[in-house]
């Protein structure tokens, strides 16, 4: 069972620790700044005194309290997004030392154990920057709407008790359900590119998280009723075929969700779905696209 206060960095993200960290040392934060959408970016460096157990968010709070760069210039506070502060909401995701991860669970003692060490903070690369380290991840949620990753229970009458579940299925789905839509998987994916125009999200790659959540709800006894719709969308442009099997997603996912297995599973489901369409029935894809839910 996974713990929710999961402070372990994703594999490969943290440099090997160089001995015990000294409390009260100064760490430099090199931050990629941007004043707003479409504005030019710039680098600013801040020196922060860190304590044992400090994380990136607590250091950003110190910078916000006294936004003065190492050159002594007073500047605006660095903007970032966060919510839970315990790695379950995904809002604080950013690129730290070149790799994407949550900043709330990023411990300074692992990343900068020595006096004067530098940590680089950049916004995620595949989403439009709102300001500084704060990005707009709407496209991820749009992909979930496109795939209807939910259990359809709305109706005019009671549908009674749900079907029985086996513990084995529950265990598989529990892991998949831990996805927090943080965006690490798509930020590291070479097939998922920055696309600020929402009009083009209908044909751009849905991303590993959406593929995995489609699997989660396709395997749910009631969520299954929308499976034909999901598989139809996943067959098309931006669906499962757009994955290039680089398998970065599974390596950077902070929840260790077996994303590449979900990709293989959905690949199989889509293959079967399309073969069934040829031999058994020919549902109109547009009717399916407007299906229940």
């Amino acid at each position: 069972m996974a713990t929710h206060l999961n402070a372990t960095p994703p594999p490969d993200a943290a440099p090997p620790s160089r001995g015990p960290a000294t409390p009260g040392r100064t760490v430099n934060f090199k931050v990629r700044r941007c004043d707003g959408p479409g504005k030019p970016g710039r680098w600013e460096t801040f020196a922060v005194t860190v304590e044992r157990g400090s994380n990136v968010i607590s250091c950003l709070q110190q910078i916000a309290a006294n936004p003065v760069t190492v050159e002594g210039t007073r500047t605006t506070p660095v903007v970032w997004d966060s919510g839970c502060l315990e790695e379950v909401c995904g809002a604080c995701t950013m690129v730290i030392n070149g790799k994407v991860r949550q900043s709330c669970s990023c411990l300074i003692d692992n990343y900068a154990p020595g006096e004067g060490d530098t940590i680089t903070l950049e916004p995620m690369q595949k989403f439009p920057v709102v300001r500084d380290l704060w990005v707009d991840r709407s496209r991820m949620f749009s992909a979930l709407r496109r795939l209807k990753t939910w259990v359809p229970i709305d109706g005019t009458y009671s549908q009674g008790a749900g079907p029985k579940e086996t513990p084995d299925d529950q265990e598989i789905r529990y892991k998949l359900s831990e996805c927090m839509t943080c965006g690490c998987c798509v930020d590291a994916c070479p097939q998922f590119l920055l696309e600020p125009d929402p009009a083009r999200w209908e044909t751009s790659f849905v991303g590993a998280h959406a593929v995995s959540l489609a699997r989660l709800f396709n395997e749910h006894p009631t969520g299954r009723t929308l499976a034909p719709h999901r598989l139809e969308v996943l067959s098309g442009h931006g669906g499962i075929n757009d994955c290039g099997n680089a398998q970065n997603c599974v390596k950077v996912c902070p929840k260790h969700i077996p994303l590449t297995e979900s990709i293989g599973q959905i690949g199989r489901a889509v293959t079967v779905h399309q073969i069934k369409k040829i031999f058994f029935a020919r549902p109109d894809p547009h009717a399916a696209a407007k299906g229940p839910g």
Partner: protein
Amino acid sequence: MTPDLSAAAPIQRPSLFERHYFLLRRLHSLTGIVPIGVFLIAHLTTNSAVAWGRFGLRGEFPDMGVRDGGVAYFWREVLWINQQVPHLILIEVVLWLSIAYHSVLGVYFAAQGRCNAHQYRYQDNWRYTLQRVSGYVGILFIFYHVATLRWGWTWLVPGGASWDHQRSASTLAAALRGGENFTAAGLAVSLFYFIGVSLLVFHFVNGLWTAAITWGITVSAGAQRQWGYICAALGTGLMLAAWASVIGFATLSPAQAARVEDTARGQPFKVGM
């Protein structure tokens, strides 16, 4: 976020490309294995006969050494393919069309991604990058290979050798070396062959590995790993065959190969044939 229903966009029928996206993608995957991959295996088996053919001669030409025996075996194999295999031109056209389809769609699909292996230095990510690089180089290589040795664009061959299936070994060696002896341009061609064939072997076995995920044959991480071992073993074998072929012909003297061809044929060729 509430959708704005007042100004519903007119429903557009998706383009032909979008409607048949699945079919186009899976056809791209399939053509890479059948016929292209299957042909690659057959082609490398034939060509590497220059290295192992002596042991397949079954007692014929007992005086020939490993080198000459390999040439004789290869020569006979090529003659058999060109004279006995039925519907050869049909097979070739299907192959060319498949390669053209796989190339055009491959370049288009590859253009939809941005390699980031310098940032996320995982082995799988390097594979992803190399799959694209090997595709691009492979297209150039196959075009050069087919244009010079099959379509007779001899102006692209150093020394101007023209490949002839009646004299398959000697003309191939001459095309690789730039003449009887190595020229600088010949060395460049041989090197291009070495790199091109190696990249194509990688492209094929890596494509075979990812195709199993795409089609949903290998789902679990364990299944993907084990299929990976099988692909790696196939790749090692094909790579050895590829290197044996290129090195075997690049180090072959065209004059000596021509003598072996005459012996194998039982009578010398007329001059200028």
